[in-house]
């Protein structure tokens, strides 16, 4: 998932890409694949490029800026120790210095990263025809309407009504679970197991579905901890 040549940090101003001193073309390739993979996630963010010591021309920066804007990302600053890269950035009207970069607000992507333990949050209702696929957990704050599909390698948590199709543990993780405030999916899959929601009796209540002896079971959530 992480590229060898490019590292990413979430900073207060948006996203910071740090590129290594390798060949520019390789860096460019790595950056675009990274961005392409996460375009939904990063959409609309402001980007800072930390070019380290490498020399980058203004043409190359311009090409990157164009490429990023194709994914709805705005390159606004370039950090560099290389004088000619700094000049190139200034020539394009990009900032070459950002404030409080090393402050406590910085979250380091690498230190919070565990393989398969990433999650994304969707803060909206997913309507028919939408499909989310993610290598990690998926959290939806909103409803998942019939005709929408959620596929996650990890667990799925819906803070709302879940009525579409949901597949947790899609790569075979049998410990994945599906939770929802109202669990009424058209079809619920965990790892290789497929189940159909039985007709509900009584009031909707928060439920959690998981695999038990190779079968999908759903249990009311009444945490009395």
């Amino acid at each position, binding site marked *: 998932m992480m590229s060898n040549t490019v590292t990413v940090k979430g900073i207060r101003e948006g996203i910071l890409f740090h590129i290594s001193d390798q060949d520019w073309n390789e860096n460019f390739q790595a950056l675009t694949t990274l961005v392409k993979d996460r375009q939904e996630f990063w959409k609309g963010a402001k980007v800072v490029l930390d070019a380290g010591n490498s020399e980058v021309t203004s043409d190359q920066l311009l090409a990157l800026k164009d490429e990023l804007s194709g994914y709805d990302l705005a390159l606004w600053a370039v950090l560099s120790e290389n004088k000619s890269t700094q000049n190139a950035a200034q020539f394009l009207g990009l900032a070459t210095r950002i404030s409080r970069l090393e402050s406590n607000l910085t979250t380091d992507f690498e230190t919070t990263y565990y393989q398969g333990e990433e999650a994304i949050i969707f803060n909206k209702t997913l309507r*028919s*025809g939408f499909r989310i696929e993610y290598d990690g957990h998926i959290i939806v704050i909103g409803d998942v309407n019939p005709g929408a599909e959620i596929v996650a390698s990890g667990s799925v948590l819906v803070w709302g009504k879940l009525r579409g199709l949901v597949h947790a543990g899609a790569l075979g993780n049998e410990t994945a679970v599906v939770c929802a405030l109202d669990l009424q999916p058209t079809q619920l899959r965990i790892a290789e197991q497929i189940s159909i929601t039985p007709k509900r009796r009584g009031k909707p209540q928060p439920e959690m579905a998981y695999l038990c002896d190779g079968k999908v079971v759903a249990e009311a959530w009444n945490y009395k901890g």
Partner: protein
Amino acid sequence: MPGKVITITSGKGGVGKTTATANIAAALALINFKVICIDADIGLRNLDVVLGLENRIVYDLVDVIEGRCRLRQAMIRDKRLPELYLIPAAQTRDKSAVSPSDMVRLCDELRPDFDWILIDSPAGIERGFRNAISPANIIVVVTNPEISAVRDADRIIGLIEAEEKGPAQLIINRIKPEMVKKGDMLSPDDVLELLAVDLLGLIPEDEMVVTSTNRGAPVVLEEKSRAGQAFRNIGQRITGEKVPFVPIEEQRGFFTQIGKMFRKG
């Protein structure tokens, strides 16, 4: 004030987009707004038939866009409502004859001269739909109280949100109060609960819609029609007036039933 563009769409076919377009247009024209309807359903045109203007078509939308006639020449004025105009769709071409930017340009040209520009969208989510929503200020989604129509409406509303054209407003058409009462039909509340959008109108099932469509006269012109009244209410809501939503069951009392029996006889 430049005119506003309202696009009427649905996803599923046959739920009453064209009927809704014709009637909302006529309802707005009845309260003295200058209105033009554009039929964007190229290749399967209908709006001219519903408005009873088919026999007066000389030029159509594609002729305007391809420059074979001036905009004025393609506008057909309604016989009954002097403030209502129509630009018909071409019957012999298909949706690819028009692009979304063509529609934006066309509407920009019409805005100074009209208060409301209504676009009747084709069914589906392809090119024709994109053409129809690209110039819209307001998007009205029509659905029926049926699972399949509601599912398609949900999809369309999602696409409208993705294009940042939202929030869409909803018309639920062809509601049968008796069936809703018995629990055999989705109630307006069921539909709204799923779609979670603003309600613009509830149209009861009404046989007069069929007769007036066949005659080519919008049902809003029928004083006594329940559907006509519902469309007149929608017209007023669009202009910003607060018209309460009357529960549909209440509109049909004992006396209107008796009255209907006499009229039939």
